[in-house]
């Protein structure tokens, strides 16, 4: 509810900035006018970012619905936060009907772009990157919508986030397509979200390529995610997440990983050379995070109704990311051997006898190894009969007309 007088004042200021631009560094005048435009935005505003690299010492913030931020390209319009001294994000948005496109956000101290609560969010052709490459001191998330509905992420590039490059949390009606996520701990992560389509993305060279997770202590339990038509290759970067974070429990070499989530369809992807396994399915108990005993009672820790079909697998499984997995690989397949394309912790809900509904696999001769983590790996082995099942396929995500 910013007032029009302030807008008038600011227009005057912006105008004087433009007028005096000849005698000032043009970058300076843009930083200030951009911040003013965000602070005084009205619904319908299109705020443009011209070509250039613009440095900011403190985070930017937008609270107004119906605003578009538009640059001239993710390699041309760059908001740089190298040397940022204040604020936990680069750009923090708390608004609906928000579109941001064609710019880059680099080297933020914390998250690059966070959108906290809002409907109809479009993030398109935005690059978020820590230009120094993978480092535990990089910000946690690149593109981070949380508690959003009808959210479209497309054509983005996310590089070197110390948690997830693209992270959709606690949201509904999500489409993530045509993005490229590389050298993050998690390339693309869908967490506690209901209804997500993740397709035509490239998730290479992360610690884990594409993750579908549920975390406890969150009001919304996630389910119904489709992961298809993606390239998920060589996600073997050593895990550089801060200890204690959920993704710090992701073994390097995980292609597509499902943890504690239900109704996940993984199909028609090309998944190759992920050295723990091309697909990893696990319960909360194998997630390597803490608090399991206390939380299990109030939380569904078991992955269920996971459907895997028609993926193209190659390579992978040769260098598992955790010691206990290496030992298991050595024991079952020999030191020069490899895990099969799918590994699963094998932990099932003791109250549900029918194990078949946990993971259904119709993927040619691809094999699933249950490591039987709940019984000290005693029953580790492959039994594809147990996964010869099917569950109802999910409908595509279609945004309701706004």
């Amino acid at each position: 509810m910013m007032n029009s007088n302030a807008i008038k004042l600011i227009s005057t200021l912006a105008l004087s900035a433009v007028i005096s631009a000849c005698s000032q560094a043009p970058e300076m005048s843009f930083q200030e006018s951009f911040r003013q435009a965000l602070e005084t935005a009205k619904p319908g505003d299109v705020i443009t970012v011209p070509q250039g690299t613009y440095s900011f010492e403190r985070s930017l913030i937008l609270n107004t619905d119906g605003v578009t931020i538009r640059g001239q390209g993710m390699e041309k319009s760059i908001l740089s936060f190298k040397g940022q001294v204040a604020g936990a994000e680069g750009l923090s948005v708390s608004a609906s009907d928000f579109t941001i496109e064609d710019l880059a956000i680099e080297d933020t101290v914390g998250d690059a772009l966070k959108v906290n609560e809002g409907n109809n969010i479009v993030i398109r052709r935005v690059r978020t990157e820590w230009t120094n490459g993978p480092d535990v001191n990089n910000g946690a998330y690149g593109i981070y919508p949380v508690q959003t509905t009808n959210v479209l992420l497309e054509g983005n590039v996310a590089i070197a986030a110390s948690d997830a490059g693209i992270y959709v949390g606690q949201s509904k009606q999500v489409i993530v397509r045509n993005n490229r996520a590389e050298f993050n701990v998690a390339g693309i992560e869908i967490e506690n979200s209901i209804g997500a389509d993740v397709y035509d993305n490239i998730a290479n060279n992360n610690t884990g390529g594409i993750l579908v997770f549920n975390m406890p202590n969150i009001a919304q339990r996630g389910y119904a995610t489709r992961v298809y038509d993606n390239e998920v290759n060589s996600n073997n970067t050593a895990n550089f997440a801060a200890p204690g974070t959920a993704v710090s429990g992701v073994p390097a070499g995980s292609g597509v990983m499902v943890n504690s989530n239900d109704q996940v369809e993984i199909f028609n992807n090309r998944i190759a050379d992920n050295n723990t396994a091309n697909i990893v399915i696990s319960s909360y108990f194998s997630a390597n995070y803490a608090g399991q005993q206390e939380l299990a009672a109030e939380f569904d820790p078991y992955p269920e109704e996971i459907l895997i079909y028609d993926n193209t697998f190659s390579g992978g499984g040769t260098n598992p990311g955790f010691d206990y997995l290496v030992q298991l690989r050595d024991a079952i397949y020999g030191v020069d051997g490899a895990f099969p394309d799918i590994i699963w912790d094998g932990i099932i809900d003791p109250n549900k006898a029918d194990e078949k509904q946990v993971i259904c696999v119709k993927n040619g001769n691809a094999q699933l190894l249950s490591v039987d983590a709940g019984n000290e790996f005693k029953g580790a082995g492959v039994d594809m009969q147990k996964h010869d099942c099917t569950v109802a396929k999910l409908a595509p995500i279609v945004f309701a007309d706004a």
Partner: protein
Amino acid sequence: MSNFITRALTTALWTTTLVGCGQGEVKHFSVDEYPQALSDWGIIELQGTQLKVHDSAVVYELNTALFSDYALKLRTVFVPVGESADYHPSDTFNMPVGSIISKTFFYAKDSQGRLITTSTWQGDPRDVSTSTHELVETRLLIKQVDGWDALPYVWDGDDAYLSITGKLKKYTLTNQKSLNYLVPSSNQCASCHATNHTNKDILPIGIKARHLNRTSSLYQANQLAHWQSKGMLQGVSEPAPSNALWADQAASLSHRARSYLDINCGHCHNAAGAADTSGLLLDYEDHPKSAMGYCKPPVAAGSGTGGRLYSIVPGHPELSILSFRLDTDSPAMMMPELGRSLIHKEGVELVSAWIAELEGECI
């Protein structure tokens, strides 16, 4: 008409008023007319070197207050004559249109202008002078028909000026360290004051019974009783809740620590707040232990975990994320995310002492 001319005219007008009556009126401006100069409001201004609060505005204090880089804070509330706020035992009081709340941030300074972070102040605005103090900013909350507006004014010379975009002010402290003091932008004001992050209404945070229920150091009476006796507050029902003063050794450690977390964290970490995404709730309500952080793993803390596994490990502050995030000044890791660039050592010690006292075990 340029702002300069407006300001000059306003100053001229004010001079006339001041000469005529000794003290001007508190003014209310519509959203289209917010003035550039703080003094135009008439609430707070410099007379010579001395800070002057209008007689019709009431100076107030909180029990435990938000930590803001060791800044001293002068708070005032103005309620239009003949109107009154409505008491509520737990929520922000509903205040009449035309109410103005101000908070002025300042420091004592040494002869070289370096800021002193260890000074105290007895709450009397007459003791605040630009010869001994550095005025940094004054934030106003203005109650309009549609709700509250937040306006940051930054001090420069003998007045403070509206700065919607906020400002990063750089100071040197007496210990030679530098201070990057962030004056929040208007939207950043909302980051804390939209305590319900879904409806996004801006609300005062301190104007609650539990924060105000204390004796004023200025006039030695209970503030709620004083407000009610002046007619600016109605409906006070006893017993009114009361947060602790965080440094009050007579209060229990638990009460002091919960009070500290309430005012420093609860504006976001409440069930409808911006930080409900974390599932960690630190306002002074009865929450399940896991929601209050006991043995609770982080959700999206990134490097803010400090490598620790749970928000609170009973008995072990050195293993608790809560202590870590208070005890860092890295913008990526620290909590609160906004409003400080220094560590509140005493606050860290308080919360850590409380965690050390908690019983239980995280398996």
